């Protein structure tokens, strides 16, 4: 009996120890990283999250697609040693298993933005130094980034799932269906129109801050682009006018065209340029002169010969002797090239010349505000800056459109714009100008595959990309784009 009591006395302390000492073992929160409940407490954390939105664009998985989705299917680049996926895209031979159409990187950025938009409010409530105005500015930047990403997606896929809430817990709808092109564009335009008011005009710290962050100008530029894409010409004229009236941007002088805009970057002309603290891998891999993946399609050289004084020609846009994309790979007109570790380029999304030409296009095509003289003057601003002499007078709408498309091709070569320009021109009035697409087959074909390539370019629905197979497999509500269903 006595022994039993001793046993019991021994057991009780052991029980106590076991029950109470385990406290830290039962704690499930990770020790080595932040969790959501501890984040979103103050202004600094929200700013950091916003920086994360920018950083998510700042990698080759994102910029590769921004550049190459806009160029490969067009007529500016040829492949020297591109991979299979890119080679197929060069021929517009697209199918859902081509991983180069994977949009996940874009949705990552969208989710970063949605997180900021969802949780910034609670941080502001928690942090007295976080003003209402700052909150609105940060949210407007996130909205602008998200709108930029959706504008890229809608131009490439036409219909994509519109996700406006953060995926932060399991209540999220993991199987969103596609929204229509109109819904997406309406969302972008409403979002941006609202965001413009809250955005800063600029940032004083440095040109890199000023061009690298979303400002009023950037939001207006994205708006102008999407209005033009959606054929809302009066709205396009309106936002481009507002952008011009900001009086913040100007065309750089012709003599400085290459050096200011492309070699140094963040010029007076830049509106939104992605900044890289390290190498711009996309441009380095694609165009480094020692081992480029792509080269200019050699027929474009002649375009620039039309005016011998064009500052955008040899050793500016392209390098004739090396068959290079000089715009990004070059250093100066002596023919010097960037070394492999010197690709500190920015990645230009919008610049002022682009805006002027957008406005010109809207003036030509608007029914209520049609003004061919204004359009001519706008095209001529860009033209005369490069040539030093005015454009020959043009009066008819058709000729102006041709001159505009050509000016865009020369001014914005290799800036990820060409395919969208061609498609925008081709698809007007129910594909009135489909020949622009069909003509690409002649550029791409060899003696054996003309019919084949022509065939790839002949179907209107093939001008939009397929949804990557994995996405369709994972999401039962996601319907593959027409033409790619099999």
């Amino acid at each position, binding site marked *: 009996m006595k022994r039993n009591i001793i046993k019991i006395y021994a057991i009780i302390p052991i029980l106590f120890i076991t029950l109470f000492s385990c406290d830290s073992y039962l704690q499930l929160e990770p020790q080595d990283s932040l969790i959501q409940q501890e984040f979103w407490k103050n202004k600094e954390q929200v700013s950091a999250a916003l920086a994360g939105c920018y950083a998510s664009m700042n990698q080759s998985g994102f910029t590769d697609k921004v550049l190459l989705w806009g160029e490969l299917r067009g007529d500016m680049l040829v492949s020297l040693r591109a991979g299979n996926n890119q080679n197929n895209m060069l021929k517009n031979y697209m*199918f859902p298993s081509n991983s180069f159409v994977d949009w996940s990187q874009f949705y990552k950025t969208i989710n970063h933005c949605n997180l900021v938009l969802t949780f910034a409010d609670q941080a502001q409530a928690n942090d007295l130094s976080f003003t209402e105005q700052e909150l609105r500015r940060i949210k407007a930047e996130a909205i602008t980034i998200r709108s930029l990403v959706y504008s890229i997606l809608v131009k490439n896929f036409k219909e994509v799932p519109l996700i406006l809430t953060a995926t932060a817990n399991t209540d999220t709808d993991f199987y969103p269906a596609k929204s229509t092109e109109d819904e997406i564009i309406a969302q972008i335009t409403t979002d941006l129109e609202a965001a413009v008011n809250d955005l800063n005009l600029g940032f004083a710290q440095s040109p890199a801050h000023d061009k690298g962050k979303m400002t009023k100008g950037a939001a207006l530029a994205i708006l102008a682009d999407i209005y033009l894409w959606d054929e809302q010409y009066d709205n396009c004229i309106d936002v481009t006018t507002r952008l011009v009236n900001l009086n913040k941007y100007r065309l750089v002088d012709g003599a400085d065209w290459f050096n200011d805009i492309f070699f140094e970057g963040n010029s007076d002309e830049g509106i939104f340029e992605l900044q890289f603290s390290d190498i711009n891998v996309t441009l380095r891999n694609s165009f480094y002169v020692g081992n480029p993946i792509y080269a200019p399609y050699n027929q474009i050289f002649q375009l620039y010969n039309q005016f011998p004084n064009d500052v955008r020609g040899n050793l500016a846009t392209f390098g004739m002797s090396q068959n290079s994309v000089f715009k990004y790979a070059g250093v100066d007109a002596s023919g010097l090239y960037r070394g492999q570790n010197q690709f500190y380029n920015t990645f230009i999304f919008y610049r002022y010349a682009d805006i002027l030409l957008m406005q010109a296009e809207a003036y030509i095509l608007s029914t209520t505000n049609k003004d061919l003289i204004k359009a001519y003057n706008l095209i001529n601003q860009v033209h005369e800056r490069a040539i030093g002499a005015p454009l020959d007078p043009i009066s008819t709408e058709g000729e102006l459109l041709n001159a505009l498309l050509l000016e865009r091709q020369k001014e914005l070569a290799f800036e990820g714009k060409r395919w969208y320009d061609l498609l925008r021109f081709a698809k007007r009035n129910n594909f009135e100008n489909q020949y622009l697409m069909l003509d690409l087959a002649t550029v791409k074909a*060899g003696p*054996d595959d*003309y*019919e084949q390539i022509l065939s790839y370019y002949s179907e209107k629905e093939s001008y939009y990309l397929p949804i990557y197979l994995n996405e369709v497999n994972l999401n039962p509500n996601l319907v593959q784009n027409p*033409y790619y269903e*099999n």
Partner: protein
Amino acid sequence: MRTKKFITWLGSIVLIMVVCVGCKDELEDTTFFTSDEMTIIQTLESNPETFSSYVEILKKTDLYNAFKSYGNYTSFVPTNEAVKAYLMEKFNVESVSQITSAEDIEFLKIVVKFQTIPSGRGTSGFVEGRLTDTTFTGDYLTTSFLKGGGIANVEINRTVGLEMYDIKAANGLIHSINGVLDPYVDPVPVVMDKAGKHTIFVEALKQTGYYEKFSVIFNEFGSKNNFTILAESDEIYAQEGINSFDDLVNTFSPNDSDFTNPQNELNRYVAYHATQNFLYSRNFPEDNFVNTVLERNAWKSFKTDTELKINETETGTDDTWTSLIIRESNFPAKNGVYHTVNKLFTIFTPKPKHIIFDVVSDQPEIQSRLIGNRVNVPSTAYEFVRWFPEGNKRWSGSSNNSALNYDVFDVSGFSWIEFDTPVLPKGKYEMLICSNGGAGSRGIYQTYWDGEPVGALYNLTLNSGGKGFPDEALMESRGWRHGYKCITNKSGAAQYDSHSWSRFVVTKELLCPEQKRHVVRLEAVKAGVMPIDYIEWIPVVENGPADDSNCYND
């Protein structure tokens, strides 16, 4: 004591029972699969609403189990509606079960074999022209993009379209098609005749006797004939003012109506329209001659970045060549293919040009895949190669070979071997030969040209020192030149950099007074292995470009 024994007994019995029962194989009667992916058959059977009729055909023809077997097949599978329509058209019956006669079942077997390729071909391998591999009936299927709209609108054999494509199965790929691919039965002239767009040319074929000649499917040795015919359509003739066969006769042979005579101009004209090669439009050589049925003549084929030019003159004026009207070309038949040319196609006399003769890839039997890689065959299997003494020999292709087209004629143990050359335009040439040499086991040969010995001994046993490699001047003085830089193996090792692939200069002055095929014979002085790659002829032209080891396409 008794109980102890009893216990031992009992124990042993229990032990034996345990052993016996325990030995039962738990896995008996279970079949294991190397993969849990569905086979072609399983895929088809799981979609009966689309494929049940074809599965029925497979069962009926006893080919059902074949599609369960290991392999990598491409199976074109017609949908139920397609099968129904085909049965109605061919046999006038509603369903597969109504087919009973042995003859009809035999035909269905051919149909199934014709829908099946022994290697996997996804849509990414589809081109304008023929697919690389033949079906189980030995025929090429063609794919065509002419309807536009990309992969979704591709036509197989210019007749049926794809419903679903690239359906993966464990043992191959399935493409579902909206019609049954009708096996080729007719030879080229009959197909042309039935199509009805070339009536004048078909009449000319008949009058000259070539209709029958081009209709022979198997030659006397039992191997398959191939013909590629270039023909003018009635429309093209009309552009030249030829509206009937009589007009054609008046153009070419107004005073001689003995059209079957090989000397007759119309006969020659027709013979010049065909070659015994199997050439879809994309198979025309980049820059070379194609021998025609008309002896001692050839088409000159040249491809630019964008165009195929046949018989381009060298006057420098534009538009002197003939090309194919692609929409009216690449029509397959049992023994070849026909194309429509875009203008009157007359006999062309080429100037001498650099000709490189790949003794393997340029043989029609190898082009049509009748003789496979490393398969030993007798010399009778080839029309244009002979050797002595009889014995089976092989060619061998390997991507490790720095050989032209990665293949060599890999022969040994002969006293002589001879090749019929391509047609050489008349002129004066240097003749060079390239084999993989430079080892003691190789042979030494004397070259004969049309029966006459020519040049010095071709000593394949020489090593780099013996050839003077790599000093170009020293090599030249000993009769050797570097191989080409542009001929490499798949990892990029060039002939130029290896002494074993040096070219031997047989002679620097070979006179060909008339345009025709010649015979090159190599007779063994010392027997040995001879992996021969190519023979080439470089025109000797005053002020012409010198032989350049960079590349043969100058």
